């Protein structure tokens, strides 16, 4: 079985970021980048599946600039077997990303695509579902448990009100949610081993481009400064004066 894991390089999710002065984008001066946390969960899941079934091959793929090799290195260090960088300086939106990923899928023919439910920079939550639709494959988004057997995936997924379990014929697209697993810590051994694993650099085969264009990025209007109260009694008085619980 072959698992393709889609990985995005994103702004460190714990960094505080602001807009560029002219509003043309996000100011990333001195900001670190990392693997999108949900994609890290996807890699971890693939590696755990491979630990159960060593015949599994794990291929990590990123679409982006040459700096993204850093994130692919991390995927390899976690346990992916090889990586593909679709190297481009073009801008993409989720729709054009799904087309480029579709091309990678057509050339790799994986049985399963594991990816994050959302990238924590754009918070779009679109690429996995769009890719599944383009391929005509079944999808299970927001996965919190994944099992493979007999050409099928059994996936428990988070819903708005609880959980449901789906059975999907393979090939299928699965997107990860937070509770699926806790990604491992990467040791030196993994990092050293990753160096000998191949990263295949390819040119994009689709035109890319964005139909959802960024016009402006701005800060969120701050909430008015709050007030500290000294007791529950004072809290109640303040709430009553604002029309609550009176």
């Amino acid at each position, binding site marked *: 079985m072959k698992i393709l894991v889609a990985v995005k390089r994103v702004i460190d*999710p714990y960094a*505080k*970021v602001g807009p560029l002065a002219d509003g043309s984008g*996000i100011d990333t001066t001195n900001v670190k980048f990392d693997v999108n946390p949900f994609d890290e969960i996807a890699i971890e899941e693939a590696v755990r599946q491979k630990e159960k079934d060593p015949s599994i091959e794990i291929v990590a793929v990123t679409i982006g600039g040459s700096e993204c090799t850093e994130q692919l290195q991390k995927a390899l260090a976690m346990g992916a077997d090889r990586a593909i960088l679709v190297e481009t300086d073009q801008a993409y*939106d989720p*729709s054009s990303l*799904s087309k480029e990923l579709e091309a990678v899928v057509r050339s790799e023919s994986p049985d399963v695509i594991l990816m994050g439910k959302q990238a*924590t*920079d754009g*918070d779009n*939550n*679109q690429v996995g*579902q*769009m*890719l*599944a*639709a383009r391929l005509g494959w*079944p*999808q*299970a*988004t*927001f996965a919190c448990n994944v099992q493979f057997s007999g050409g099928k995936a*059994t996936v428990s997924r*988070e*819903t*708005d*009100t*609880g*959980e*449901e*379990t*789906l*059975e*999907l014929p393979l090939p299928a697209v699965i997107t990860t*949610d*937070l*509770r699926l697993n*806790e990604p491992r810590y990467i040791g030196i051994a993994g990092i050293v081993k990753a160096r000998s694993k191949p990263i295949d650099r390819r040119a994009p085969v689709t035109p890319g481009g964005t*139909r*959802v*264009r960024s*016009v*402006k*990025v*701005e*800060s*969120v209007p701050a*909430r*008015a400064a*709050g*007030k*500290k*109260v*000294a*007791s*529950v009694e004072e*809290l*109640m008085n303040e*709430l009553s004066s604002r029309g609550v*619980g009176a």
Partner: protein
Amino acid sequence: MSRLLLVAFDPTDALGGAGFAGALGLPFDVLLLTGQAAPGIGAEKVLATGWTELPPSDAIASAVAGLAGGYSHLASVSAMRSKDALARLAGHLDAPMVTDVIAAEGPSQFKRPIVAGSLIETVAVDGNPIVLTFRPSGFSKPAPGAEVAADNLNLPGTSAVTRVSVSSRGGARPDLTQAKVIISGGRPLKDADTFERVIGGFADAVGGAAGATRAAVDSGIAPNELQVGQTGKIVAPDLYIAAGVSGSTQHMAGIKDSKIIVAINTDPDAPIFEIADLGLVADLYQALPELQEKLKK
């Protein structure tokens, strides 16, 4: 032709769409994925799939794609179920999509939060149709008129996927996204029993919903569907009480639209106090029972 199809997963969903349709300034129809009648929100047509329960999202996406012909915009209230199905729909239609719209500047320019709600991006969209999910709290909520019976389309709902089981928790408490009062707890709630007793008990006493941080969900203190924040639910109650919540960017992303935020935390320097309207430096185990008594009255 410019026309909006509001895809309502259930009839209450339609209610949240009235203000959004108004902001777009387009004539609109409602498609009820479940239910037979919609609240009167000014739709020209009310259609229904005829489904008694929601099929998996591949079935929803292909059914809606079959109706998409006459529409320039297809939109739903933001939720996990709508993101699941509408992004697949956008893939089917090769349509551009905008998630979590909080404001519309005309029919093809929208505002949405990015990077855990710490920034707002304005996007311009080229394409027809455009697929959208929107957060109702950003739009006005007109009082609904008389219910309108739907025209049943008897759409197929066949899926490649088999649903093996469904579990729903939460019981009788109001839904987080609808609740007027929310009490949320974080890591210091220790375990599931304590969370249910302290936070759940508070919620029941004041007729509110219970919420949680990711730290609480990750450590098994609270069920996943109670997670509030960037990667959980986005809430907009009249009163949000955060007890033992540090106030991470990711958590704040989910609560910014609350009218009043109250924070109870033992650490006077906790970041939650920077956005709370009212902050009380106290042990939640002492403060909450007292507050619960007083709010109950």
